[in-house]
């Protein structure tokens, strides 16, 4: 492979991966703290994309500006859903958790179909239409590398937000409480932490994050009622690869998956690219279920605790 092409693919892959990473952070947070797989996460992304689309379509609001409306809106949806449904699934059998969130995803998906129709919708921003170029670097034999501005913005903003959120979890009081709850629910409870509130906040923050992701993605991807399912599968791969609940892991895994996707669609064609990362996913589950970056044995924690 030509070095220019290689670099081009690598950069495209990293940019794409940044987007995957950012959209997965909310999911990994919810997974890590509440031990719930949120199968509806893709639909929240889809909702955010629609919100941002309509704000642009109806009020000419720039999608990047629409974050200040869409993110809080998803936060509130998160609180409402937590209060009405999610809180009742905590500690319930796995079947309940899976199919309740799947039920939510079915409802949202088909509401979108009902109200927004099955048409593909996109936001085209004039100022993003001109790609810019790196290079050429003739001296080392590298030609021009094309960079898509929308993806670059999503990538940079996504990384900044992931970083900010990481710092929030690490250093803020609320962040510490969330982490304490994630680590040991019983002890957190004994220390007087209001678990129910922490979960509500976690769920809402998870949605807020995916809300931001939706706004950053609408200038690049088209939205339709079933877009959530496409993305949630990638998000699951990213989250498991990164280790459940690990922000840094999700970012690293997101980048990895982005690069894998771009290279595999270049090499074996775009149709099979998804199969590739699902196969990676399955192999990973076999050899290291706790994720590349997770703590080994995490997936079997339940088991160790189970034996007194």
């Amino acid at each position, binding site marked *: 492979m030509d070095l220019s092409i290689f670099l081009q693919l690598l950069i495209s892959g990293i940019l794409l991966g940044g987007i995957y990473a950012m959209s997965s952070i909310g999911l990994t947070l919810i997974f890590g703290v509440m031990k719930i*797989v949120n199968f509806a996460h893709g639909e929240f992304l889809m909702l955010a994309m629609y919100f941002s689309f309509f704000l642009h379509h109806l009020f000419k609001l720039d999608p990047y500006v629409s974050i200040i409306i869409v993110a809080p809106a998803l936060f509130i949806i998160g609180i409402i859903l937590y209060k009405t449904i999610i809180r009742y699934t905590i500690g319930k059998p796995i079947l309940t958790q899976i199919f309740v969130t799947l039920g*939510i995803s079915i409802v949202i998906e088909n509401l979108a179909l009902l109200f927004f129709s099955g048409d593909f919708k996109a936001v085209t921003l004039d100022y993003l239409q001109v790609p810019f170029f790196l290079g050429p670097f003739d001296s080392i034999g590298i030609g021009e590398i094309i960079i898509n501005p929308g993806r670059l913005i999503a990538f940079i903003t996504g990384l900044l937000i992931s970083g900010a959120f990481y710092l929030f979890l690490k250093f803020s009081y609320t962040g510490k409480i969330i982490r304490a709850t994630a680590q040991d629910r019983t002890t957190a409870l004994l220390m007087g932490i209001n678990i129910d509130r922490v979960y509500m906040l976690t769920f809402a923050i998870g949605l807020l994050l995916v809300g931001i992701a939706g706004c950053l993605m609408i200038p690049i991807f088209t939205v339709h009622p079933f877009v959530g399912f496409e993305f949630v599968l990638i998000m699951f791969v990213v989250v498991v690869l990164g280790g459940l609940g690990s922000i840094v892991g999700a970012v690293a895994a997101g980048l990895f998956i982005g690069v894998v996707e771009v290279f595999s669609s270049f090499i074996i064609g775009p149709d099979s690219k998804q*199969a590739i990362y699902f196969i990676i996913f399955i192999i990973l589950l*076999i050899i290291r279920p706790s994720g590349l970056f997770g703590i080994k044995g995490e*997936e079997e924690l*339940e088991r160790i605790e*189970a034996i007194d």
Partner: protein
Amino acid sequence: MKQLIKNIRNSSHLPFVCFFLAAAVLPLFVENDFYLDGFILIFIWASFSSAWNIIAGFTGMVSLGHNALFGIGAYSSTILLIRYGISPWFGLLIGGTLAAAVGVLIGVICFRLRSHYFALATLAFGEVIFILAMNFADITGGAEGIALPIEPDIWNMSFQGKLPYVYSGLILLMIVTIVSSKIKQSKLGYFLIAFKENEDAARMLGVNTGRARLTAMAISSFLAAVTGSFYAQYIVFIDPSSVCRIQLSIQAALFAIVGGIGTVFGPIVGAVIFVPITIALRAVLGSTMPGLHLIIYGFILIVVLLYMPQGILGAAKNKLFRISNN
């Protein structure tokens, strides 16, 4: 015969003996193909949901990849018929066996994973099969799908009119139900419950939980695939999104959960409720309000899981239990 009398005496089976009798007799008086189609679809989706229930309901391992097993059945018998002229009567057995082998492979790989991970792994597996079916167009016809021959020919499992499909569908459902009920009452059934309730305790009592689950998975996969073959024969057209998509697994779960997960007859109850509603809603609102029925189902799923987690049969049983205890 003795068994039958015993079953009838055992009152909890009575409604289902009645169900099967009604299902056998009623179609004879129905002339309208539209309604007969309803019967056939009830039998097919009840069979598939029962097959899913054997692994997910009996053991608590939530599979989100059964759509792939259904698809393996549908594609196996169809491809064998079209390319090699092999009768679907054999094709469905071959497809079933292949699916059972695949199911065991999934089990060997994924059974050591805990709960969430198992669901995600099977989901990913289902997607891989879906993508393969889409992309290996030489074999599967890709997104365009494959049409099956429609001239009636018993050897090709292709019949004149709907009635033969009604009865073969009914026989399929009876077989699935009998298998499911036999498992439940057998040593295997006890082992599966033991695993579901508490794996450590089960193992200490000598239950080889791995082998029990693999057996259940093989049977469940086989039956799912056979149902897929029959579906292909009835619809005479298959493509990845009609026989491999994840929605099939979710639908199987919906029927089983609402009817009563882990019970033998729950999936049938679910199918009897939902299939006619779906057909009716599609006929009435089809084009004007696409997906409205799914919105309703999503709500029902959530409400049942939160407020009636044992489903209709579980709730009914509890009530009977209470009455008989008073």
